[in-house]
């Protein structure tokens, strides 16, 4: 059953004078409209009965004390939240500072490491990759003088880095009769082994 909209407007006082007169005439002639009007009036009466409901005083009496308690709790919470916020902010700042400081220290170490590496490269051409002791330096095409000089340099490096004495170095080189000069040593060492030896020397020196 659809509600006639004019009934609602009529009871709510939303009809103009003319509209009201016209509707009242319509109402007097229609049983259906009268029934709907009674329906809405009964509903409005029911609503009026629920306007002033009597309840126990307890709830309303306790309303203010409850509010005061809640306010006090909120103040405490605000205080502790403030402290937590301050501590969190301070911690975050500290972490950031540590991170930045650590980064700066690492940046300082890097140039020192680079300097130490460059000292280890025997060749005057310091940009060359010194990871391999293969014929990159053209040892196989060297003359005797050059080979002897390289020999001496290598020996002094080995003594220094491996903590050997000239005698022990001599002993090592005489183990194999075919070894002894840098040319022979190099021929017996493959690229991988050469890289490994070089990196060990480098690593030992830096750390």
């Amino acid at each position, binding site marked *: 059953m659809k*509600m006639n909209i004019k009934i609602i407007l009529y009871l709510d006082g939303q009809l103009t004078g003319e509209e009201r007169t016209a509707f009242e005439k319509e109402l007097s002639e229609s049983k259906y409209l009268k029934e709907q009007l009674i329906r*809405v009036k009964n*509903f409005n009466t029911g*609503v009026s009965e629920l306007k002033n409901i009597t309840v126990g005083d307890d709830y*309303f009496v306790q*309303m*203010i004390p*409850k509010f005061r308690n*809640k306010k006090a709790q*909120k103040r405490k919470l605000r205080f502790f939240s403030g402290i937590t916020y301050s501590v969190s902010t301070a911690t975050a700042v500290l972490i950031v500072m540590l991170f930045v400081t650590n980064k700066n220290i690492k940046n300082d170490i890097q140039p020192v490491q680079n300097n130490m590496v460059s000292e280890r490269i025997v060749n005057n051409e310091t940009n060359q990759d010194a990871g391999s002791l293969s014929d990159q330096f053209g040892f196989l095409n060297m003359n005797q003088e050059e080979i002897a000089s390289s020999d001496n340099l290598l020996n002094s490096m080995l003594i220094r880095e491996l903590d050997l004495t000239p005698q022990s170095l001599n002993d090592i080189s005489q183990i194999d009769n075919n070894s002894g000069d840098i040319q022979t040593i190099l021929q017996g060492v493959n690229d991988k082994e050469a890289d490994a030896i070089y990196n060990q020397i480098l690593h030992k020196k830096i750390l």
Partner: protein
Amino acid sequence: MADPSGDFDLVKNFIGGDESAFNKIVLKYQQKIYWHARRMTGNHLDADEIVQEVLMVLYEKLKDFQFKSSLYTWIYRITATRSINFLRKNNLKNFFSFEDKESEVVRSNVDIVKNIETKEKLDKLEKVLLKIPAKQREVFIMRSFDELSYEEISKITGKSIGGLKANYFHAMKKIMEHMNENEH
């Protein structure tokens, strides 16, 4: 509408540091605040939550109240806004929540209305009111229960009188249709 006499003095005294003035204001308007929230939410616990929020706002903002409207209009505006916000927040919570129906039943069983007959009538009405949109419900409550004129409702809600009349009409239409369905 509530009798505005004495409100100015109460507010002035509260601003001056008299805490008992705030208590008097609350005593004067607490029932209006509660029942509007109750009719909007349909249950006592939610209404109580809104009441506490409203009192908190009143306490914090009363010192800034400049009597541009009556104190009653201002308090009612806060109550109406908090009620609508609460319903919105609840709708969102319910959408994402996996809470079962049991908690809803518990919520509806806690009540300050002890008379069984009155409670039954109130429950019936609250169920129907919850079926209509919050904005229409709000106007219906202000017009039917608080007997406010459209001008007064307009001051509280900030909406146009024409819009409010339309809202009231649609609310009544839906309520009557729902009541009709329940009877058949």
